[in-house]
């Protein structure tokens, strides 16, 4: 009979059985009465002959029972009772596991949100970003020109659609403070391609794609903030870039992605005739959807063919350019993956250490319970039954640990989100949800297996007679236990070494980043940005004039010590490059074209930032637009191009827009500024006076203040709005804050790795302590004998410590070996410290040994105080 049929027919079997027994008794009674026995005696006699009816019925039913499952309930009840009986053990185990599992759950919630969770678009795996690379520029992902997109569209068979779009922010006015809101100009295919429908109204249709159409789609958040979530917002208007736009749609609240959809406002992308034909305008973003069943590598091969064909056909515009299709998820992820995997790895180690500790506790408990097991074995329990009992107990504590871990993750996730750099994509999506719950459950079960399996095997192996005899705890007993216990300590120490070395490397790297001389004085500086959109600043002179007026008025504000402005913010991730030439032949090779970073700055720029001038002078009001160009170069430029810093007076031409170079004199040499990448060489850079610029879409302004720089923001904003009440002021930030943000990844890495390293370290030390205490308690008798025979207390102390030291050293050696193999995966994230830094390795090893020996000291002292008389009588 199959077990399923059994399950269903069991009820009938049982009722048949009781009916049958009843009939049996009745028949016997009847027979006895027929033989002449009085009725009352007959019933008793029948029962006597039959035996214990209840017991027999139960035995009979048991034949049919599905034992494993039903006994499981008993095991659980028994396990809970036994755990309740030793609350100390249970608490320590549950807490240890909760720490280990909780750290994993918390980090998993980050991994899940950032790396694993699918983008919130249908068939998101078919979405890709189409970008370009150029041999001229050192950038991963550049844009594509509209004629090139048109050609790809015609020649490619891999894409079902290619949608160009342009990120564009807009100035929103007419509602309190002027604001600059991020957004994108998109074509009508954009939202259908992503596969998302508007919450209200509609998305763009072809009639919106006409010049003069001022239709706009709002994000959920802008709709909520600006229109209070009004369901009748469709058809209402708002002022954007000085014009009136009509709301045609509201999009649902996206989970945020660092993408065009992260914007708050979408307008129609209406390309100009020039944009449609200018092949050299490599600056459009493209959202691509692959045809179903098309591989991205396949698409990439096709793109390579098209790129080389275009480069041949249009060498002026496309030579050196290639296209690059990146899965949208990867494109959005950027390089956030590796630090997260390092973190995940480190919490995994923490869990392993926690499991080793728990394993040790289980071993001790198994040893302490050996009489209980022996008695159970003696009265008929099989080894399987004992194993099952122990397995149930480890799963129970692991599940309790898992529950605590889940709550720990709930409470810590906010902290972790705060520690992680805010520019990690989708970081707002981090949450503790069912995925994290399942992960936690899985981690708990894994922990139960890791920590409970071997101890259960060992504890259930019973030598009944030896265990029942009271004196079983003498030397030589539980050899398997002791070996395993010491192995576990070695493993723990090894894992802790790896963790702590990883954490120390990250912290050292971060400390060195902080110690890098940025080339300026970052304190008491505040910066803010003003943009000069064409609709308001048609000529560059207007922008220049505006900036000069704001600066002049701001210098009068009490507390402002210096003020200046420039086009390229030195701490931002945007750079501008320009071709240049020198009048006299120079030492650097004449490779064409020669490129350098280019910035345009107002006078006082170097003084405000605190960048030293190494030679010559600063720009001043005498450097006018109509005069011949003047330049200040940085030290890196001077050394690279001229081989010395004595370059004042040499002549230079930047931006050869015309055929003939326009020569200008170098009037000063400034110190290098190290901005974004502290490890990189300082880049050659040319500064020119802001007044001599040909183009200014916007500037950042910078103020050095005497008091807290944030205190003067309002005063400066007042000066700006006095000149133009509709000018949004954005990116208001102290320079120190900006630098902190730039160091976000190494900071969070070192903080989190530091926390997990510390956790692992503490757990490992607790493990060493626990095992040495245990060893001492096991050896009480041996120690007693030794003392009785004349060993002095110092010797006993030494014996215990040497024992602990041996274990620790073995672990340290293994751990250092593993670290040598593993830390190279961190190499790309380290700055100024080698992945195999001997000082770190040695220091951590010594630290761990010292602390471990200290942990041995407590049990060793206990051993030293053993009274031989007591120890010998004790058994």
């Amino acid at each position, binding site marked *: 009979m199959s077990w399923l049929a059994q399950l269903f027919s069991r009820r009938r079997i049982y009722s048949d*059985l009781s*009916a049958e027994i009843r009939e*049996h008794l009745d*028949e016997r009674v009847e027979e006895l009465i027929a033989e002449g026995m009085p009725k009352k005696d007959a019933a008793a006699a029948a029962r006597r002959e039959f035996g214990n009816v209840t017991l027999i019925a139960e035995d*009979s039913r048991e*034949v049919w029972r599905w034992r494993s499952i039903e006994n499981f309930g008993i095991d659980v009840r028994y396990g809970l009772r036994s755990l309740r009986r030793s609350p100390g053990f249970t608490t320590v185990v549950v807490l240890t596991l909760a720490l280990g599992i909780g750290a994993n759950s918390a980090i998993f919630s980050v991994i899940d949100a950032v790396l694993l969770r699918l983008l919130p678009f249908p068939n998101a795996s078919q979405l890709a970003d189409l970008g370009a690379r150029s041999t001229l520029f050192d950038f991963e992902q550049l844009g594509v020109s509209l004629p090139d997109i048109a050609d790809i569209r015609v020649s490619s068979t891999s894409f079902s659609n290619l949608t160009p779009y342009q990120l564009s922010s807009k100035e929103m006015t007419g509602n309190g403070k002027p604001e600059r809101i991020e957004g994108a100009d998109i074509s009508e295919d954009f939202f259908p391609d992503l596969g998302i429908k508007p919450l209200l109204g509609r998305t763009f249709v072809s009639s919106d794609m006409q010049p003069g159409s001022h239709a706009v789609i709002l994000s959920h958040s802008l709709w909520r903030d600006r229109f209070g979530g009004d369901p009748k917002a469709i058809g209402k208007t708002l002022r954007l870039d000085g014009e009136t736009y009509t709301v045609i749609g509201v999009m649902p609240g996206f989970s945020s992605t660092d993408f065009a959809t992260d914007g708050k406002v979408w307008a129609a992308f209406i390309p100009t005739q020039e944009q449609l034909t200018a092949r050299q305008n490599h600056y459009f973003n493209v959202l691509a959807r692959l045809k179903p069943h098309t591989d991205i590598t396949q698409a990439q091969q096709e793109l390579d063919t098209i790129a080389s064909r275009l480069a041949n056909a249009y060498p002026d515009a496309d030579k050196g350019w290639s296209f690059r299709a990146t899965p949208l998820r990867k494109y959005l992820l950027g390089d956030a993956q590796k630090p997260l995997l390092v973190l995940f790895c480190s919490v995994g180690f923490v869990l392993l250490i926690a499991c080793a500790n728990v394993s040790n506790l289980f071993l001790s408990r198994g040893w302490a319970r050996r009489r209980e097991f022996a008695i159970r074995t003696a009265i*008929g329990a099989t080894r399987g039954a004992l194993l099952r009992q122990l397995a149930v107990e480890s799963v129970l504590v692991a599940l309790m640990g898992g529950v605590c871990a889940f709550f720990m993750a709930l409470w810590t996730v906010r902290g972790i989100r705060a520690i992680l750099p805010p520019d990690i994509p989708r970081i707002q999506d981090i949450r503790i949800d069912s995925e994290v719950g399942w992960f936690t459950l899985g981690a708990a079960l894994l922990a139960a297996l890791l920590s409970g399996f071997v101890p259960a095997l060992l504890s259930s192996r019973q030598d009944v007679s030896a265990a029942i005899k009271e004196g079983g705890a003498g030397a030589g007993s539980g050899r398997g236990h002791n070996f395993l216990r010491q192995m576990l300590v070695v493993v723990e120490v090894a894992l802790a070494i790896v963790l702590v070395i990883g954490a120390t490397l990250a912290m050292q790297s971060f400390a060195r980043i902080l110690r890098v001389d940025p080339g300026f004085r970052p304190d008491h500086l505040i910066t803010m940005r003003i943009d000069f959109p064409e609709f308001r600043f048609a000529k560059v002179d207007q922008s220049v004039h505006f900036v000069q007026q704001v600066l002049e008025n701001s210098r009068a504000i009490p507390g402002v010590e210096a003020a200046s402005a420039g086009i390229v913010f030195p701490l931002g991730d945007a750079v501008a490059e320009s071709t240049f030439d020198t009048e006299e032949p120079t030492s650097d090779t004449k490779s064409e074209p020669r490129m350098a970073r280019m910035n345009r700055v107002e006078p006082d720029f170097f003084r405000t930032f605190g960048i030293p001038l190494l030679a010559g002078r600063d720009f001043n009001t005498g450097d006018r637009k109509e005069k011949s160009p003047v330049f200040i170069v940085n030290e890196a430029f001077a050394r690279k191009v001229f081989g010395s810093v004595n370059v004042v007076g040499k002549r230079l031409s930047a931006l050869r827009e015309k055929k003939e170079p326009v020569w200008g004199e170098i009037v000063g040499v400034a110190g290098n500024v190290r901005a974004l990448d502290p490890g990189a060489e300082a880049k050659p850079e040319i500064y020119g006076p802001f007044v001599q610029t040909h183009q200014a879409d916007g500037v950042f302004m910078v103020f050095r203040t005497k008091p807290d720089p944030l205190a003067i923001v309002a005063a400066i904003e007042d000066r700006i709005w006095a000149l133009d009440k509709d000018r949004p002021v954005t990116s208001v930030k102290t320079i120190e804050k900006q630098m902190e943000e730039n160091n976000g990844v190494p900071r969070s890495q070192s903080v989190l790795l530091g926390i997990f390293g510390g956790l692992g370290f503490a757990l490992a030390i607790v493990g060493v302590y626990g095992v040495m205490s245990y060893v001492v308690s096991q050896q009480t008798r041996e120690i007693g004998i030794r003392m009785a025979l004349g060993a002095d207390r110092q010797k006993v102390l030494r014996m215990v410590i040497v024992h602990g030291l041996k274990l620790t050293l073995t672990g340290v050696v293994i751990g250092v070996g593993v670290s040598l193999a593993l830390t190279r995966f961190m190499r790309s994230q380290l700055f100024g410290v080698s992945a195999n830094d001997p000082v770190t390795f040695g220091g951590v090893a010594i630290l761990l040994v010292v602390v471990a020996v200290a942990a041995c000291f407590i049990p060793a002292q206990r051993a030293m105080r053993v009274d031989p008389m007591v120890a010998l009588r004790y058994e």
Partner: protein
Amino acid sequence: MRKPEQRDLFPGALEMMILRTLRKQPLHGYALAKHIKHVSNDLLQIEEGSLYPALQRLLKAELVKAEWGISSTNRRVRIYKLTASGAKHLQREISRFEQMFEGITRVLAAIKS
């Protein structure tokens, strides 16, 4: 933990007697108990009830099958029959038992002489 088997003379003895009895004719529980008591000359002091767990085991192993029917004394009884595999099992058990018994006899004889 209780081990029902140990309530017999030796493991499987009761089952063997049941199967042996049922080979001759299908019987219900009470008749079966009476018959076994009778043929063993009351030598085997088993409780009547211990028959039932054994019967359940045989049912589960599909060595016997049971059907409700009416006995000669006109009561509703559950009549057990030997199945084909039960007959085969009995054959095997008997020969195993005989071998064992022969072995024991020899050892006992050796001690006596």
